[in-house]
């Protein structure tokens, strides 16, 4: 672990000196980690590539602001990729529906149905959700944010965040059951 930390520290120094080789090495080291996140916010591979390229340019431009005492480089990079992913989703469509709910629907989906589905199949269903619903679902169900945090990030109310989560759950349940029976 210490060797890895030293390697990353060396790479960071190189990136801060605007050394292209160091920047490329850092990018390749974090490609898998960042792409896994980018895919959750994208409609397809081209979208994911856009998110990745914009995110890494931001990473290299703002690396001087990274403070290892405040958190890990992984968390810092994740924050940037998520923000870029959200910007990408926002650019696709309206993001400010004002429907609000207090409680979120919890439709039932049997666990074994999802067992039979591959990761790509599930991702395709999520990618088909409307933009705001897509963003809320990923932030809540995958990234683990609560509605207050989601509302702050997306500039919506907590009630609207809950409504989108309800809609995501109902839509996904319907689509998964259709796939299972059809």
């Amino acid at each position, binding site marked *: 672990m210490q060797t890895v930390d030293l390697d990353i520290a060396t790479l960071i120094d190189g990136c801060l000196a605007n050394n292209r080789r160091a920047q490329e090495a850092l990018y390749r080291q974090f490609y898998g980690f960042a792409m896994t996140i980018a895919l959750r916010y994208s409609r397809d591979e081209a979208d994911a590539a856009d998110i990745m390229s914009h995110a890494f340019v931001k990473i290299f431009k703002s690396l001087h602001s990274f403070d290892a005492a405040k958190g890990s480089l992984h968390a810092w990079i994740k924050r940037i990729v998520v923000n870029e992913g959200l910007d990408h989703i926002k650019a696709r469509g309206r993001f400010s529906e004002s429907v609000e709910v207090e409680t979120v629907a919890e439709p039932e989906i049997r666990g074994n149905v999802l067992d039979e589905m591959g*990761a790509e199949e599930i991702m395709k269903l999520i990618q088909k959700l409307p933009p705001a619903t897509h963003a809320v679902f990923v932030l809540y169900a995958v990234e683990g944010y609560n509605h207050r945090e989601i509302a702050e990030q997306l500039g919506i109310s907590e009630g609207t965040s809950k409504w989108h989560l309800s809609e995501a759950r109902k839509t996904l349940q319907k689509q998964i059951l259709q796939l299972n029976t059809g």
Partner: protein
Amino acid sequence: MNQKTPYELQIADKLQQLPLPDLQDAIWARIERTLDIDMPSDDGGGGGDDSPPDTPWWGSGGIGAFTFSMVFVAALTTFIIYKTLNQSTSNAPARDNSPTNQYILP
């Protein structure tokens, strides 16, 4: 508090296993292009090409330009002197044998 349903936990787990597209090189090329514009690097780039940048035939930087301009000035000066000397030797009066200048005495 975030209370995920059991199937959402499953979805989150599955999404960690998404196969990664083979776009690593293509995306890096895009990043590098943008960085070359926004944050040019003076380390010759990271594209694996270690050869020095091409230098013009007259040499690199200010020394080459100075040498070239000195050679040019010397050549121009030589040409001007040559032309001046040629002109001064050709200014001496020459015998004019043209027919109009020959007087025919009656």
